[in-house]
């Protein structure tokens, strides 16, 4: 289950990196990619939550869940601005991406360890 979550989040991170290039270039990101990014991230977080609630293993990955949830909250804020045709703050988009990428690295380290 964790592997599924990691794959989904990795897809979200990859698409997020693509979207970040639009934000940094001050262009309007393509909405199909925005929706795919958001959907992959939400599904990944939900799978991770399901794992945490059902596993009997010692490490339930609550730490990664919290990191991704913070990234998701920032993501919702960014999306709400983008969809209303308002400027998306570049620095916040970078922070959002960094938290997501950091979370992916964090969970990978724990899985591979």
């Amino acid at each position, binding site marked *: 289950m964790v592997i599924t979550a990691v794959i989904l989040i990795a897809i979200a991170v990859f698409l997020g990196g693509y979207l970040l290039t*639009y934000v940094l*270039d001050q*262009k*309007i990101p*393509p*909405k*199909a*990619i*925005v*929706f795919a990014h958001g959907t992959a991230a939400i599904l990944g977080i939900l799978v991770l939550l399901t794992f945490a609630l059902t596993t009997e293993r010692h490490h339930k990955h609550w730490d990664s869940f919290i990191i991704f949830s913070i990234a998701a909250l920032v993501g919702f804020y960014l999306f709400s601005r*983008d*969809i*209303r*045709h308002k400027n998306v703050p570049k620095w916040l988009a970078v922070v959002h991406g960094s938290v997501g990428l950091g979370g992916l690295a964090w969970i990978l380290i724990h899985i591979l360890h």
Partner: protein
Amino acid sequence: MTRSIWKSTAPKTNFPALNGNLETEIAIIGGGITGITAAYLLARSGKKIVLLEAGTISGGTTGDSTGNLYAMVDKRLHHIQSKWDKETAARVARSRAQAVNLVEELVNEHKIDCSFKRVPWYLFSETDKKDKTIEKEIDAAANYNLPVEELHELPIPVKVSTAIKVEGQAQFNPAAFVRGLAEKIDSTNCQIFENSEVHHIEKEEELVLSTSSGTVTAKKVILATHTPKGIYGLQTALYPYREYAIAAKLRSGNFPDGIYWDTEADFHTSLRTYSKGNDNYVLVLGGHHKVGQEDDYSRFFGKLEQNARRYFDVDEIEYKWSAQHYKPADGLPYIGESSDENIYLATGFSTDGLTYGVLSAMILNDQLNDRKNEWSDLYKASRFTPIKSTKNFIRENLNVAKQYLKDIPGKADAESFKEIAAGQGKVVEVDDEKWAVYKDESGQLHCQSAVCTHMDCIVDWNDAEKSWDCPCHGSRFEATGQVIEGPAFSPLDKRNMNPKE
């Protein structure tokens, strides 16, 4: 180029543009039938009004409508009855009849020259497939004390299986009525400004409406703009559709007055007559589709012409035009205070907007004068009707999601500007961005972002109206990007043509 018979034949108004800063009790945005009737009633009651119209009075959807006024509804009363209940459907019919009566009173009181007349309304089926629909409507209409009669032939040369006739409905020239009424508004209480497009509403303690040449500060605002301007949750319950109309000049033939609705679902044609001097016209309307989701918009005019020539001795098609309507999720319009305090709206009229527009004005007049209105609860804008709305809500919002998903990198109508013919527009991807590019008749290119300024959907070229139409919430823009109608406040973002192409 399209033009409506109403806008072309009604006398023009000549109100100034806003120039400076004003304060008022109530500001009304929109000079169509809703805005002007509301301004008339509120000014008559002593309220201080400023009305701002982006173009000219009745230059929007009112002037592009059918000119029919009736107690029945587009979706049929028996649908309202089955979705809601008998009492609700009866109240809809009664409230709408009252609105038609008000129009008649105003026409008579002010002697407005708008060809108002009482006519019968017919609903017919050409084949026996739709006889059940007619039977249901006969039963429903009889419940609401409407003078109903069953027929098996019509006074027009259309063969029918079954038909229903309801006496006492009405027709007029809507642009002539609205422009005529605008001239009769008490000018000590109401100032009207044309060519004064509101591009922003600042929601502070009071509401500040900004135009390019001035501001209006108001305690309350009425959005008489067909659909509310800006972003509202209510837009998830409003679904934009377009419909087409032609006015065919008749060479010969006697066509009795009436509103004729065909139940055949595929094209949903309606017919009516109109006389201008010695010229007799038959108006043929139909061809519903979602805004911005067709490939060939002009074909609808062809089909209407085909229908007109099938039944009548048509000389020429002198006018053709199209109009937008917003279907509500639960079948009834939304009228009253919005989720924003002190901002009132009237929307979701479907194709029954002339009558609902007048009814909205009556309701808003009572509400803003702190009077009870017997219909205000029925049409309350903030109502929550999940069971009655769910089916339409899910279907239509999935459709909106689908439109967003079409915004894929690398996918566009054309690969280069060279593929765009004169007088045409196409979406082209330039530097990873979608541009809405229009080539005018002289070959000059007009480039703007194809991203709708309301909620970021990609606009679609409408070849019939030469406009960019948003498939999500119905915002429409001129070929050069300026807002025509819909919830968007701002024009499409301009883009400089890249010499690289």
